């Protein structure tokens, strides 16, 4: 389940941070259709933010058709973002596997590889989140 990290000094409205982080998770395939989002209570207990903020973020996601509330059960992911579809998975995995083999061949160990992958992912995250930041203050560009 996704865990939100709220940065109070970022200047980005808290509810937008939740929206963005959910979308990132969707883009990266960390959240798949059918996955359940944490309840408002779970989010605010972990982050100590106002419950209305979480509800507002979830409403925003719902309006964009990304999530769907199911009464009595929770809020569930309805569709994913980006291209991480199931058919691509096998090919990507094979490519990554070859790459990992090459990395070990050059003398990297497991931790180095993990660090490298995280670094690349982080860099990518920044690239994807930057436009959203600029759109901040109004509504999300994607509708």
């Amino acid at each position, binding site marked *: 389940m996704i865990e939100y990290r709220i940065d109070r000094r970022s200047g980005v409205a808290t509810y937008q941070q939740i929206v963005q982080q959910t979308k990132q998770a969707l883009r990266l395939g960390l959240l798949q259709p059918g996955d359940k989002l944490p*309840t408002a*209570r779970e989010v605010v207990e972990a982050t100590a933010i106002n419950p209305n903020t979480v509800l507002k973020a979830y409403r925003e996601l719902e309006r964009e058709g990304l999530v769907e509330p199911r*009464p009595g059960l*929770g*809020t569930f992911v309805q569709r994913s973002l980006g291209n991480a579809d199931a058919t691509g998975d096998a090919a990507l995995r094979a490519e990554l596997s070859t790459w990992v083999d090459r990395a070990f061949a050059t003398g990297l160990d497991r931790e180095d590889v993990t660090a490298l992958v995280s670094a690349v992912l982080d860099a990518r995250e920044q690239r994807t989140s930057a436009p959203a930041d600029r759109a901040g203050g109004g509504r999300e560009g994607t509708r």
Partner: protein
Amino acid sequence: MTTAALPARSGPAVRRGLRPRGVTWLTWRQTRLALLVVTLGYLAALAYLLYQRHQLDVMQARYSGLQCDSTTRGTVSEIVGECGRTGMALAATANSLHEFASYAAVVPGLLGAALAAQPLAADFEHGRHLLLWSQSVSPRRWFTQRLVLPAAVLVVLSTALSAAMRWAAFWSHPASSMNDLAFAFPSDAMVPVYPLLTLTAIALGALVGLLWRRVIPALGTTLALYGALLYGIEKVRPYLLPFRRTVFAPGAMPGDAWAYDFGPVVHGKDLPYSACDHLACENLSNWTVYHSLSQFGPMLWVETGVLAVLTVGLVALAYRRLLAVTR
């Protein structure tokens, strides 16, 4: 969201037995040690009282066995010495009962200060009234239940002790009762006055605790007012029942009577006792206003009634004060 499914809230559990609940639990938790000490104290006092009463019997038996006589002749040194010692011992034992009763009369004031004034004032002094009153219990209910438990325990204990006291002094040996205890200060330590005096002291302590809301001044004020109360009772007691008046022949002062005032009768006129300075009163008839011993029991009940009215008044004032504090 799982808000629809509230975590099962344990409903009011079925509680049985005498387990204290609610405010009474809190009171019990806070006063159990003090109540234990007080109970042990009362039991020790009761044991001491019964022992002294027994000693008195022993001394009296020994004294009468000696057949002492103020006109005894013979081996003066032996008999008078033995009689004198036993007589002194008898008087000392009687005196110790007298003293015991006097101390016992002071105890309710200490308990009122320690078990009513102190906890209430301490709660206010540390702001804990804000804690208590923001629970689901009204200040009035808290106040009542906070005091009912110690009051109930003390009434039972003080009734037991003061009944024993009166038994020891009057009921156990009607023929040789300790009449000098009647009408005097120590009679406060006998039923039915003593339990009511205890209640009055608690009500007084509670009112003072609510008024001062600081521990030290509340303790001091409670003790001072209780002292004033004992003094006041002492002053008022003679007037609780009507005086009786009689004139008696020289030297024939009626026994079993508590003389309030007396003086010589000259030419059918009552003169004050000061007239004896220039009159040979021992040769004259005397008048006296007095209470007879038969009035002692009723007088204790009247005194109890006065204390009951006072207690009700103090409790009413305390509730009014409590209401003012929450306004």
